[in-house]
């Protein structure tokens, strides 16, 4: 192999992961389209490689959130039953879904992410105002508190509508395995509309869960031989370095113009993926 391609993979993953990290998103959302469209890597190979990088990013960025007591690990492990089950279902579907459908699905997720990026997130209404603890939440003791620096004290919050949250998490796990992304785009609605967590807690907890969810599918892909080492190696390494860099820049660059740039990139990737979906079909027809 020429080392040029490995360098390219490394650099692209580094950039994607750093940019993603700046806005608190996983780089997988960018890595798969770039590899598939510009790198001409087979989409299955791109997705499997991206799954490894998703694990790498999630693991490497989890520590500060944990030490800051923002992560609700009890809730995370509970929701992980749903996300890993979803991931397992995704593994079954992975080889069965036609490639063009994968491109379509990816385009849809990209557009959804663009839309989410436009609407700024805040603490969901009704967060920590409900008086009584719900049954499942009480049984598992999921309610907790987190330190709010601005107020200088701990804020208690409650976990609401766990069953609905679990169902949404199953979907997030499925998409995550199928497309090789962290699928924060689906976890955010689950965290906000169902569980109604404070934004800091939901970001930290969803990031903490991503690595276990991705491990559910990555393990299967690894054993099945879907993970191509010369592609996945540089991508994983680049993602870790990028995530570290992205977290450093985060403080300085999360303004509206960066956001807009992201939306433009996401939409253009979505269009490319849609074209690819049609292109592949046309190609198939001519063969």
């Amino acid at each position, binding site marked *: 192999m020429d080392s040029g391609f490995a360098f390219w993979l490394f650099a692209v993953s580094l950039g994607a992961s750093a940019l993603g990290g700046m806005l608190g998103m996983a780089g997988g959302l960018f890595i798969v389209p770039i590899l598939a469209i510009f790198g001409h890597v087979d989409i299955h190979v791109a997705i499997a490689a991206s799954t490894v990088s998703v694990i790498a990013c999630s693991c490497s960025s989890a520590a500060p959130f944990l030490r800051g007591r923002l992560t609700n690990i009890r809730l995370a492990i509970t929701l992980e039953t749903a996300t890993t089950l979803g991931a397992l279902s995704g593994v079954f579907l992975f080889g069965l879904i036609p490639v063009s459908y994968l491109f379509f699905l990816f385009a849809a997720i990209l557009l959804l992410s663009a839309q989410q990026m436009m609407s700024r997130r805040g603490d969901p209404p009704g967060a920590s105002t409900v008086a009584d603890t719900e049954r499942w939440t009480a049984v598992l003791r999921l309610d907790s508190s987190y330190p709010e620096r601005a107020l200088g004290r701990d804020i208690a919050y409650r976990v609401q509508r766990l069953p609905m949250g679990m169902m949404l998490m199953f979907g997030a796990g499925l998409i995550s395995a199928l497309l090789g992304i962290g699928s924060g785009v689906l976890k955010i609605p689950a965290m906000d509309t169902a569980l109604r967590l404070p934004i800091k807690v939901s970001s930290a907890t969803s990031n903490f869960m991503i690595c276990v969810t991705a491990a559910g599918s990555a393990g299967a892909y690894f054993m099945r031989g879907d993970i191509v080492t*010369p592609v996945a190696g540089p991508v994983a390494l680049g993602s870790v370095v990028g995530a570290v860099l992205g977290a450093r820049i985060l403080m300085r660059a999360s303004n509206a113009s960066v956001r807009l740039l992201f939306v433009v990139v996401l939409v253009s990737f979505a269009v490319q993926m849609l074209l690819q979906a049609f292109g592949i079909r046309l190609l198939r027809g001519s063969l």
Partner: protein
Amino acid sequence: MNRATPGSAQLEWLLAGMLHYGTSLASAVIGLGLGLALIDSRFSVPKLAILRDMRIVSIGIALFILLPVVRVIVMFIVYLRQRDYRLAAIALLVLTIILLGFTVGLAGSRHGDPPTSPARLGAETVPSQTMRAISPESNSFLTAPPHTFDRQESFSRQS
């Protein structure tokens, strides 16, 4: 902290440290393998050396995949020792599902499979399964004739 058990913060620090050092270790192993491959491909050493380097990279990738598994095992043990049996059971369930994934992958393994293995049938990919890794536009992976092409070998083919 209203409801947290006394050992809870301790668990968070334990997990944070584990994930931090685990990531560093796995990244270092991948970096080592890629670095060696880079050097070896420069000096056109026998293919075997680069295969070895790629194996090191594979080990690094495996470490990354195992890291979350270890995290769940650690959580299981800690909850068990705290006599928090419900959470321990949940951790065990998550662990079982992940390990089930490994088994599913192993069952669908393509080692020695015919090109049209069940896992691939619906994918309607390019005719030659072995050529799938990279499409014709990037020639570096495709200089080998299809029947001798090995995924790991690709590193040895210099442009």
